[in-house]
């Protein structure tokens, strides 16, 4: 029997005045870390808010931990830890107050782990939320969420605005959470380095549309940049699955999302270099290719 998907979006549409999410479908399996990557305004936060039941779609189906949303969000959210860069704790209260409050609501609250995280993040219970820096505030949110040991973590741009040390600390904690392979994470960011570090599945989103979604390794294996030196007077080759082609005199740089030995053979002679691409390069090329294909 298949395990219940932690997040299921089917044909989700949501229109705002100047933006719309179109026919979005994605699945998050138990134990999976999905990086949701997109430029600013791509629809990452809207997708996450719909997945959390905070915003109702105009059309489509949303299920969170098997519960239909937004109707059954109260039950579903018991096992979900949601943190957003835009989220703020109650400014009048202290971290300790929030810890006690969270502990009283969630049966899974792990006081020992909370104390460990408090120390690791260099936070103090008596600190007022008002006095926290943005990095400390994000750590406080993460502490409150991780110490509940939720089955699913939904993180919307959690590392935005953090210094490299704070980012490293948070990402290390995510990895710790994933040691339990029944838990999963949906992690949105426009920082591809963070996503590449923690995710095992990656979804690209742009202008409200899903561009591509597959395993990280598959992305990294399928995308290549190939440099060719053309004989004088020859035209640039046009192999199948060409995502980009840049001609610079005798030299041509081809980008493909279907790299294989067969594909390389189809390019012909004159190959000077085959380069692996970083996730950021893949993301940018993918987004531009998608926009071009849509005539945008």
């Amino acid at each position: 029997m298949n395990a219940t998907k932690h997040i299921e979006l089917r044909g989700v549409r949501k229109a705002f005045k100047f933006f719309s999410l179109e026919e979005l479908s994605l699945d998050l399996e138990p134990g999976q870390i999905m990086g949701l990557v997109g430029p600013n305004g791509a629809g990452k936060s809207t997708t996450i808010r719909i997945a959390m039941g905070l915003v109702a779609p105009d059309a489509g189906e949303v299920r969170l931990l098997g519960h239909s949303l937004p109707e059954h969000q109260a039950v579903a959210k018991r096992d979900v830890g949601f943190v957003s860069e835009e989220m703020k704790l109650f400014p009048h209260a202290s971290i300790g107050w929030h810890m006690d409050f969270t502990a009283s609501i969630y049966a899974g609250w792990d006081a020992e782990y909370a104390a460990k995280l408090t120390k690791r993040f260099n936070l103090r219970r008596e600190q007022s939320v008002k006095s926290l820096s943005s990095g400390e505030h994000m750590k406080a949110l993460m502490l409150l969420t991780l110490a509940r040991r939720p089955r699913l973590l939904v993180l919307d741009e959690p590392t935005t605005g953090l210094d490299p040390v704070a980012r490293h600390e948070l990402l290390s904690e995510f990895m710790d959470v994933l040691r339990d392979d029944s838990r999963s994470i949906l992690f949105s960011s426009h920082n591809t380095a963070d996503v590449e570090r923690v995710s095992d599945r990656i979804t690209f989103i742009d202008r409200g549309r899903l561009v591509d979604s597959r395993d990280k390794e598959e992305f990294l294996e399928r995308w290549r940049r190939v440099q060719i030196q053309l004989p004088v007077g020859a035209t640039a080759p046009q192999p199948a699955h060409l995502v980009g082609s840049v001609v610079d005199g005798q030299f041509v740089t081809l980008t493909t999302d279907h790299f294989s030995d067969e594909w390389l053979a189809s390019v012909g002679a004159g190959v000077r270099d085959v380069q692996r691409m970083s996730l950021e390069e893949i993301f940018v090329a993918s987004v531009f290719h998608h926009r071009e294909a849509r005539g945008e």
Partner: protein
Amino acid sequence: MKVLTRKLIAKELHQHGWIVSTVTLVGLGALAMATQGKMQFNIGLLVWLSTVIALGVIIVLTGITNERKERSLLYVLSLPLSGGDYVRIKLTGLLVCFGLAWLVLSAAALALVVLDADVPDGMLPYGILLCVYLLANFAVVLCAGLHIRAEGPMTAVVVATNMGVTIFMFTVGATPALHDHMFGSAPVWNSAFWVTLAIELAVIAAALILPLLVAARRRDHL
């Protein structure tokens, strides 16, 4: 009642406890001053009135409008509750916060009318109508806070309801059926009183029920 609901209502009391107790003390102090002479009566009554109105506005602005503006709403909605639960919790929590101070201050003001020999007992019906009006005023501001997301229209509601108190005092106070008995030695419970009270109670009921029918059923709460 669910644990989370209880905790969030308690959080409202925790958050607004200092302002509720401060306003209650200031209001009681103002009423004590009102017993000291005619001018002190006028000043005391004005301070009492202002504190009750201000409390209602502050509670709604800090409890709902600022929570949305400061993005704590996203945190609250991440908890295991629905948007409808959120509206019901806010409605109950903020009503309890205001209601505690309103109850004490209204009872003290009406006690002043009854016990102070210099204040005619004929003022009692008007006093009751004024106190209930202040509750209705709060209920309207609370209802608006739960429906209106933009700051501009919310400010307009606050200004309009503040002006409404003055208009109420003058129009109801000038109604012959009420005004004619105001300075008498005994309260007169005539139909004008009961009709006005019924209208006030209807406004309160409508302002408290509307969020349950509209705001609580919204599909988007952000």
